[in-house]
C-alpha cells in the first residue's frame, strides 16, 4: 500500500480498539459542558474536563462557546443558535470520520469540504402548531472531497464515516435525556 498521510494516527486508534476489547469499563466516557446565562437569550457554555479511561482529564485549555439568537428573533446575535451547534458537531464529526477512514483505507486526501443544512420549521418551538416538531425535520450534509480514490471509494468513505459517527448516531437515534434542578 502507498504511504498516505492525512494526519490521523489510525494505529493508535486500532491499538485502543484492541485494548478496549477486554476492558469495557475503561471505554466509559463522560463528556461535560456547563452553561451560564448572560443576558437575554445569550449564554456561554464552557467545556473544560471529561472522564474516561477510568479517570478525569482536562482539555489543554477551556473552550468557551457563545450561544444567542439572531436579530430576526429579536435577539443580539452574540453567538450562533444552540441548534446550529448540532450542525457544527455533525459536520466536524463526519469530517473527522472521513479522514480517519481514509487513513485506514490508504486513501490520500487533498481536501474535504462540506456544507450542512438543517431544515427547521420554527412553528414547533413557537407553539404555533403542536404537530410540528421542535427539532430539525431534515438535515442534509454535502461533501466535496478531493482525494486519490475512485468516486465509489469516496462514497464508501462517507458512508463508513456516518456508520462510525457519534454525532450522526446521537442525531438519528433517540437518547434518554434527563433534565433536573439541582
Amino acid at each position, binding site marked *: 500500500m502507498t504511504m498516505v498521510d492525512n494526519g490521523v494516527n489510525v494505529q493508535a486508534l486500532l491499538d485502543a480498539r484492541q485494548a478496549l476489547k477486554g476492558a469495557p469499563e475503561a471505554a466509559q466516557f463522560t463528556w461535560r459542558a456547563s452553561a451560564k446565562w448572560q443576558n437575554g437569550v445569550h449564554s456561554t457554555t464552557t467545556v473544560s474536563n471529561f472522564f474516561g479511561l477510568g479517570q478525569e482529564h482536562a482539555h489543554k485549555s477551556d473552550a468557551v462557546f457563545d450561544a444567542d439568537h439572531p436579530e430576526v428573533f429579536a435577539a443580539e446575535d452574540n453567538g450562533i443558535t444552540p441548534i446550529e451547534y448540532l450542525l457544527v458537531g455533525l459536520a466536524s464529526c463526519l469530517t473527522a470520520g472521513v479522514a480517519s477512514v481514509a487513513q485506514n483505507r490508504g486513501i490520500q486526501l487533498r481536501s474535504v469540504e462540506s456544507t450542512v443544512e438543517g431544515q427547521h420549521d420554527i412553528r414547533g418551538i413557537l407553539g404555533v402548531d403542536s404537530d410540528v416538531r421542535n427539532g430539525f425535520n431534515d438535515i442534509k450534509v454535502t461533501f466535496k472531497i478531493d482525494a486519490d480514490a475512485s468516486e465509489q471509494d469516496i462514497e464508501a468513505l462517507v458512508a463508513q464515516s456516518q456508520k462510525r459517527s457519534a454525532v*450522526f448516531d446521537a442525531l*438519528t437515534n433517540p437518547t434518554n435525556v434527563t433534565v433536573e434542578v439541582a
Partner: protein
Amino acid sequence: MGAGHAGLAASHFLTERSIDHVVLERGEVANSWRYERWESLRLLTPNWQSRLPGHRYEGPDPDGYMTVGEVIEFIGRFATVSRAPIRTGTNVTSVTAVDDGYQVTTGRGEIRCRAVVIASGACNQPAVPQIRHAVPESVEQLTPFDYHSPAKLPDGGVLVVGASATGVQLAAELRRSGRPVVLSVGEHVRLPRTYRGRDVLWWMDASGVWDQRYDQVDDLTRARRLPSPQLVGTPERSTLDLNALAATGVELVGRWAAVRDGHALFSGGLRNVFSLADLKLKRLLDTFDEWARTHGHDAEVDPPERLAPTRMPESTRLQVDLRSGEIRTIVWATGFRPDYGWLDVPVVDAKGQLRHDGGVVDSPGLYALGLPVLRRRKSTFIHGIEDDAREVIAHLTRYLRVRH
C-alpha cells in the same frame, strides 16, 4: 452432538476413518428443519448447491429451491446412506471435561468419550433485543420460531423488525396476505436473485467468494456477524430486495432504537444503511465481472448489469404509536444465536460465542461445526459443511492418535 447436516457430515468422515462414535440428537434427524422453520420456507440456495459428502440433489430441477419438507427428506436420506449411528430423543444436558476426555450427560444416561464435536446448531434461539420488554401488552410479539404462516396472526398491521433473509421473506409473505406491513431496516446485505442470467449463488460459488478461508478474511469478527443476504428461493427466481418490497407496499423505516411512551422510535439513518448495502453490492458485482473477464467466462453469461440504487421513500416515519392499534403484531427477525447452556467447559466468551480456531475449540478434544465462517464463508450453508467437516475431523483424528 446434533443430527443436523453438520453432525451427520462429521459422522460421515468419522465412519470413513473407522472412528468409533455416536451422534446424539435431542429430537429427530434434521430437527431444526422440522420444528423451527416457517411453513412457506424454501432454501435460498439452489438445488444443485444442496450437496453433502457423497450425496447430492439428483431431482429434475437443479435450479429450483427445496421446500422444508424436501430438506428434511434430503438430510434424512444422507443419514440413511451414510449409516450414521444416531441416537434420537437423546438430549445432552451437560458436557464436562474429565481426565482423558469428556463426560456427557444426556436424558438417557451418561457417556464418556475422548472427543466431542459440537454440531448443535448456530441458530438455536432467536436473538431478540431488550426493547421487546417495553412493547405494550396489546401488541403480540413473535419470533421466527413461533411464526408459522400469516393465517395464524391476528388481523391488522405487522411490524417486522430486521431486513435479512428471514425479515424480508416474512414481510413479503405478510404483505401478500393483505396486511399493512412496516419493515424496520438496519444494516443488511443486498443481493439480486440472478445476475447476468445466473443465480447469484452460482457467482459466489464459481468466483470463489464462498471458499474464502477464515484466516484470509480481513475482519473475521465482522464476517462472522454478517447478516444473512436478502434472498428468497421462489419458482420465479425473483429478487426480494427493499425496492421489491417497497413496490408491494411494505413501508420501510429505520432501525428500531427505543420505545418511549408506547411509541416505537426508529433511526433516521435509513439512507446510510441503504447506501452502505448498495456500495457493497456494487463492489461484489465488480468482483464477479472481474472474475468473469479474467477467467474467460464473459461469453457464456449475459452482459454486466447494474442495479438501481435502493430508493429512499419520500418520507419515512421516525415513530409509530404502538398503542393506537395500527400495529397488532411484531415479528422479530433480528437473528439467531447458539445455545451453549449445557456446556460446562469454560470456552464461551462474554457474548455467548464459542472460542475456537476454525472449529478447534479452546479445550483439547473439543470441536465445533456449522458456525458462521468457521473455516470458510460458506461454513453455515448445507454445501459448506463438507470441506469444514473433513478438516475438523482430520484434526480430531490426529488428536486421538497422539493421545493413544
